[in-house]
């Protein structure tokens, strides 16, 4: 299955582009200390506001420094760590809550379905940023609480999509056959339903990674995201915006970093959707 998926990704331009970028980001995050020699938190007031290479800067600080003289390249690559950790934890959390809710609602129908639907409707009818702000206010400003907030808010994305999908699968012959054979619900769900929603889960998961990264940026920007002591793209933007009139590069680099990874994840998600959509794909069958 994994091998098939990788081969399919290699055959789809968008998916390949997105997957490659994601892989590069992960590698950068893992080897961050090797890429830049500077401590992302150590300040050096003698070298504040140094411009990047190409604007009068030197290769000592390739992307320049911020208002406290901290090396921007180093901050940028170290931020990739916390941002990717938040993204993967939050998307996984949302999946862990949302997938069972969606499957049970779609498969069992009835009361379970009504409860899940009422909850997803309520979630959909409220601005998520406002929800996140109130959650963080209750939990406190810490990056792990941001993961919890994204999980609590975005589980409905998984639940909604998967519920709809399972509704369709439930009516398929192979499920009917399994039922007449007297298999238990649990067995049918694990052996027939889950394998069939797996591709959709993968698509939603990919898109959720991008959403989590942009939520980190938004929430850190309003001061209710990652704690200021940890370097993240959102915190870099928040700090940089406070002296935006003096220099722009401390803000632009993290913004570009976010833009590129979200673009890549959207492309990967779109590509995966094309791959798993039976109308456009032959690869996985």
């Amino acid at each position: 299955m994994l091998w098939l998926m990788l081969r399919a990704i290699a055959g789809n331009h968008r998916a390949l582009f997105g997957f490659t970028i994601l892989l590069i980001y992960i590698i950068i995050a893992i080897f961050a200390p090797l890429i830049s020699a500077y401590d992302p938190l150590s300040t050096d007031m003698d070298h504040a506001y140094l411009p990047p290479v190409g604007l009068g800067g030197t290769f000592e600080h390739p992307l320049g420094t911020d208002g406290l003289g901290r090396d921007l390249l180093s901050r940028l690559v170290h931020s990739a760590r916390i941002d990717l950790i938040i993204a993967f934890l939050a998307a996984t959390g949302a999946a862990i809550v949302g997938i069972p809710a969606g499957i049970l609602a779609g498969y069992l129908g009835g009361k379970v379905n009504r409860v899940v639907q009422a909850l997803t409707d309520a979630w959909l009818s409220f601005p998520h940023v406002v929800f996140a702000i109130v959650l963080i206010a209750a939990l406190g400003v810490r990056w792990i609480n941001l993961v919890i907030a994204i999980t609590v808010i975005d589980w409905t994305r998984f639940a909604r999509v998967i519920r709809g999908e399972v509704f369709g699968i439930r009516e398929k012959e192979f499920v009917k056959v399994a039922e007449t054979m007297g298999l238990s619900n649990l067995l049918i769900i694990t052996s027939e339903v889950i394998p069939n929603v797996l591709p959709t889960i993968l698509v939603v998961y990919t898109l959720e990674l991008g959403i989590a990264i942009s939520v980190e940026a938004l929430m850190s920007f309003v001061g209710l995201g990652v704690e200021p002591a940890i370097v993240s793209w959102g915190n870099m933007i928040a700090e940089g915006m406070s002296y935006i009139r003096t220099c722009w590069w401390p803000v632009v680099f993290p913004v570009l970093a976010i833009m590129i990874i979200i673009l890549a994840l959207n492309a990967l998600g779109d590509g995966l959707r094309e791959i798993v959509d039976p109308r456009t794909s032959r690869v996985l069958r």
Partner: protein
Amino acid sequence: MGFLAYLARRAGSALLSFFIITIIAFILCRVVPGDPALLMVGSAVNPEEWFKEYQKMRALLGLDRPIYEQYLIWLRDIFTGNFGVSYRFNVPVGPLILERLPATLELVIPTVVLALLIGVLLSTPKFFRRMAWADKLASGFSFLGMSISYFIWGIFFIIIFGVSLNVLPISGRLDMGIELPRITGFIIIDSLLSGRFEAIGSFLKHLIMPVAALTLYEITLIHRINRSSMLSVMKEDYILMDKAKGLSQFHIVFVRGLRNALIPTLTLLGVQFTVLLSGSVIIEKMFAWPGIGKLLVSAVTYRDLPLIQGIIATYCIIVIITNFIIDSLYGKINPRIKYV
């Protein structure tokens, strides 16, 4: 009768959502660390006296009751228009929110109108042979735009137009020194009523960047959905019939096609509206725009529970009203839609 019954059902599900959201928000506000009564009592020499004061304050704030009772009291009060008293400003929450609400609507309403107009317009070149380039351009922009949120647009605008070129102001609603009497709270209306026309120019200059940031993001979403629904509508038999009758392509696309394609777009707009409200919170903070989003962020910082709850209820009500407006638009666009 059909419409009334439909309304009743919609109102039912809207109310259910309202209760779920406000109950969750209420519980969250109660688990916020820090006891508001403790903060408000101040100090006394005698510990026993202090404790009495503290108990009195808890009773005054209603914090000594069980949480479900607190919620029911809050619910009863908001239906009489009483949102409680802000801990921080020590004034009723209702007027405080009403004072800031116009500023938020000044961002949201132009965004919806502009994004709908431009997004829908951008989805039409596909159907005019000579406009293929425009469709390519719009689709390319739409794909890129998906990954650029209002947040990123806002930052780029501030850097380019606010700082580098220094042509647009990056904070507030009016230039310093312009005083405007507050009549409705909407600057354009107020300046027309009071005859201070110079305020309008200043206001529009402040409005451009925040609205553009929100609009550009919304456009991409509307364009994507409207284009794909146009694609399926234009394959319908009645469009073929129109062509056979010799109607101009312009008439077919803009009158016959759009009218039918707009239904899914409007549905999306209803869902998308909460995203826009989310965006307005961030954009208000970014551009120091004095709306309820900015008020919320500061209320959270000061742990002002009644204000937080009031703002949450306000957002719920805005969403409910918007969905109601969109629902009634369906019938205007397509008279065949029966509310059943």
